[in-house]
Each structure stands twice: as structure tokens, then as C-alpha cells.
């Protein structure tokens, strides 16, 4: 009878969560501009609540994340993106 496989555990005994390595979207495609006028693209980088997604979730590199944050803040000012969404 085969031994049941145990989930891989890290050194502290906690279950290790495997995540696929994500690559920065803007580094992959240098022609893709980070533009405050493009809310469709920026929407990908904000949560349902309208918060800016952290780098660890989207895989964006530090340099582009900084530019992204600027663009999102600008888009918020001219009401292309919300500061927050309505609660249930």
C-alpha cells in the first residue's frame, strides 16, 4: 500500500504554499506604457476594494510598481479609478 503523501512543510512546520513565480508585466513588454489615462490596464493592479495590489501578488518589479502607484493616484484624481468602492 503506498504511503500517503504529506504536504511539503517548511522549516517551521507550516504548510508551504507553492506559488508560480510571477514576472513583471511591464518588464516583459517594454512597449506597454504605464499611463494614468488607461484605467483598463490599471484596474488589473487594484483590488476589488480599490486598493493598490501589493507587488507580491502581481509580480511587478519595484521600479514599475512605483510608476504604477503614481499612475493609479493620478487616475483616482480625475475619477477614472475609485478611491474605494461601495460596501455591501
Amino acid at each position, binding site marked *: 500500500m503506498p504511503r500517503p503523501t504529506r504536504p511539503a512543510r517548511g522549516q517551521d512546520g507550516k504548510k508551504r504554499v507553492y506559488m508560480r513565480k510571477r514576472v513583471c508585466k511591464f518588464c516583459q513588454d517594454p512597449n506597454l506604457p504605464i499611463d*494614468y*489615462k*488607461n*484605467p*483598463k490596464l490599471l*484596474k488589473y493592479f487594484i483590488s*476589488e476594494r*480599490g486598493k493598490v495590489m501589493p507587488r507580491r501578488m502581481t509580480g511587478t518589479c519595484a521600479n514599475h510598481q512605483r510608476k504604477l502607484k503614481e499612475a493609479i493616484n*493620478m487616475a*483616482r*484624481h*480625475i*475619477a*477614472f*479609478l*475609485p*478611491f*474605494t*468602492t*461601495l460596501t*455591501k
Partner: protein
Amino acid sequence: MGRYENIIVISPDCTKEEEEELLKRIRANLEKFGSTILRMDDWAVRKLAYPIKKKEKGHYFFLLLEADEANMANINKFYKTLDMVLRHMLVRVDDKQNGLEKPPDHVVFDELEGEFSN
């Protein structure tokens, strides 16, 4: 001198004549402050991501200016005096920038949004 992008959001309530009057005034004042308008786009009435001055919609205009940095404060001050302008923004851009071909797409943020606006 530098190239600037200017987005203005005008209240959707104002009539066509009021709007033309306003745009005429804006154009005259921008020229007074020594800037040339390279491009002026009408992005039509769009839904705002959040209400501004209790307005759910706004009429967007996009302007591309060739202007002097020293006059930016004056232009900002001028926009603040206009009641019909809900929002304005001036951004310094690269000299090769020519604005967008067409207005950006409309974005819906969540399904709940529609229910609340009705």
C-alpha cells in the same frame, strides 16, 4: 517651455451654450497665460468612479498644451475659479507624446455599482 496634458471634467448639468462659453473662456485664458493648444479632444460624458460635488457623471475634455512652467500656477488658479469644472489636472509629459487616438475605455468596477446608481 514644455508639453503638458490637461484633463478637465465639466459638470454634465450645464447646457450646450454654457459649455461653449466655458470652453471659449478656458481657451482664451490658456492663451493669455502664454500656452498654445496643440490638441483638444472631447471625451464625452463618462461615468465618474466616485461622485464629485454630488454628480455621478462628468464631461471630459483632454487638452495638449505647449506651455511655460512658470504659468502652471496661474492656470491652476484659473481653473479653481470655475464652478462648472469638477476636476482638472495638468501633467508634464514627454515632448513626443501626442495624446490618445480615442478616449479610454469605460471600466466597470463591480457588479454592485450598477445597482446603487439606479
